[in-house]
């Protein structure tokens, strides 16, 4: 979208329409996949998170003009992309890191009703 300019804003904003349709489709697909299929929980989680990431990228690129820069002044576009990518890295570290660190070890936690937590624990229940 680097050359996104007023001149191109005549007529129907296809990009936005396509983005919108895609996001609706992806959402419906995610719901269907999560609730109506019989795959294992892990696969389901993997797929729905994958879909979420694709949708987020869609918003950033199609709606938010992430890569757009101010041509007169150099490269904000690159700064913006770098910033969001680093944000993504930090997000993964925070979420995955916290879950990993806080669910490893600590033997004999109270049994929980979530199947998911049990699974993560069973491998490391005893300090092996």
């Amino acid at each position, binding site marked *: 979208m680097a050359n996104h300019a007023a001149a191109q804003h005549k007529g129907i904003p296809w990009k936005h329409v396509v983005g919108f349709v895609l996001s609706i489709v992806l959402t419906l697909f995610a719901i269907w996949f999560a609730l109506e299929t019989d795959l294992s929980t892990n696969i389901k989680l993997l797929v729905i998170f994958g879909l979420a990431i694709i949708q987020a990228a869609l918003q950033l690129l199609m709606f938010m003009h992430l890569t757009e820069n101010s041509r007169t*002044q150099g490269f904000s576009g690159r700064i913006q992309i770098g910033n969001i990518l680093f944000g993504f890295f930090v997000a993964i570290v925070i979420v995955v*890191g*916290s879950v990993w660190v*806080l669910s*490893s*070890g600590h033997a004999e936690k109270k049994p929980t009703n979530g199947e998911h937590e049990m699974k993560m624990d069973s491998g*490391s229940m005893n*300090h092996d």
Partner: protein
Amino acid sequence: MKWDEFFVTGDPLIYGADVSIAITMLGIVFFLTYFKKWKWLWTEWLTTVDHKKIGIMYIISAILMLFRGGVDALLMRTQLAVPEMEFLDSQKYNEIFTTHGTIMIIFMAMPFLIGLINVVVPLQIGARDVAYPYLNAVSFWTFFIGAMLFNISFVIGGSPSAGWTSYMPLASNELSPGPGQNYYLLGLQISGIGTLLTGINFMVTIFKMRAPGMTLFRMPMFTWSALVTMAIIIFAFPILTVALALMTFDRLFGSHFFTLQGEGMDMLWANLFWLWGHPEVYIVILPAFGIFSEIIATFSKKTLFGYKAMVWSMVLIAAYSFLVWVHHFFTMGSGALVNSFFSVTTMLIGVPTGVKIFNWLFTMRKGQIEFSTPMLWSLGFIVNFVIGGVTGVMLAMAAANYQYHNTYFLVAHFHYVLIAGTVFACFAGLVYWYPKMFGHKLNERIGKWVFWLFTIGFNICFFPQYFLGLDGMPRRIYTYSEESGWGPLNMISTVGGFMMGIAFLVLVYNIYYSFRYEPREKTGDAWNGRTLEWSTPSAMPPFYNFAKIPVVKGLDHFWNEKQNKEIKPLTTQDLQKIHMPNNSGVPFVMASFFFVSGFGLVFEWYWMAIIGLIGVLATLVIRSFDYNNGYYVSVEEIKETENITK
């Protein structure tokens, strides 16, 4: 709540503090009234958006906080000087180390560095101000108000006492009742807003406001360090914001994030705190690295060795700082795999840091080293920081950490890095840029006294603590028995602590002495500098910094110009009218509303909190509708300011 619960009572220390606060307040009011300075205070300082003045206010606040934190430190050292000392009781001691740690890191180290960044970075990149001058004022005032809110806990309501790490469930309502812990939460929260805004502000400033020709790899190292630091701030501070908010909810609204009840998880607090806390320690060391880089290059009269390697190692340290937080709780039992992983990542940070250390050494090689006071602090830094760094690596070896954790070995480590790194850098930067801020140098002879007193005192104070740690002395104990055998080393340590205190007093005296007796600078280039801040014709740059924005041709541009005798005096032809932002009282007012709101929450007076919040929102709306774009400085005025006759 009764008055005697509201005001802290019953302790001579507190009454002393009450009295001295009252006297100081009255003194200030009297001074301002007598010399008719109220208007001056308002127009020149409280409403200013000039980055140099904001920087100076940051630094002054930080020095005040250094004093407060330092008094705390000396009280602790007095209590620990001999076994079974009866000077402070347990509760007082706990409050004091809590406020000491919090104040030193959040309200002293960070603001000091941010102050120096404020003063110097726009000048170094050849800009007239920061990207958002108004926001900069908001940053300062929210920091200041946060710090004040935290500090009044000493006399109103009681201080927090759960350590600067405030581990849960200790910090919960059940185990730490009363307003103390709320002060911690809200003081940090409010000043954290300011820090985050500073992060965004300077990142944009450095990316977007550089003088023409100054590519990223022509930026001075201090500017680079500021840029990298701001990136860490932007991504680390929101973590603290959330963590503090969650604990606030636990304490005020009955949620169960970290509590014992409702299956809350205390480890989660530790996890979130250090997810922010470790990047935080790099926030306070990277600008220090930048300061030393400038000073070492200047006083070796030589360009930096391995400029690019320096830059990349900082970038690496910044990214890495998000991958090591677990080394603060190896002993929590997250299993061998987790501990091994974080052991190795932590030790790896030593590598880029080492690259920097060696690059400083090789910068001096083939130089012509001049032992000015700022340079002495930098040399002292190298010698002492390495000790702190390598003991950090020892701490990082998880299996051994089980024996060092929570002991004075750790206390020694972090004072070696924080003092020999950050505090030395603050002093070095203060002395180095003093002429830029105040138009005269600090006296060199007294300055060297300060350096030697402080450095020697510092080593006497903290070196023995490594051995105390290995001898099993835990941190945060308020006293110990004769049989423990820790008495002698503690005594030595205390003596060193007081030496540092004396050094601090001499430093303050030096400020007074130099104000009276030091000759005023006649040029803008007090130290034969290399970077653009030294290129202004007058010692203290005018409010618009540069009458004509320089065009940069390379690294060390100003130095090269001097070498090649390319500097020409300004003429009228060079001048154009300059656009500058207006002063504004709104940031100060907004911060005051934050104070009202914070104070209300501390005591759970919700009506007050809501009034404050409405005030904050109102100031935001007012600002949104404000289309005042500043004003222009006419060529005539510039001519006059710059003394241009032609």
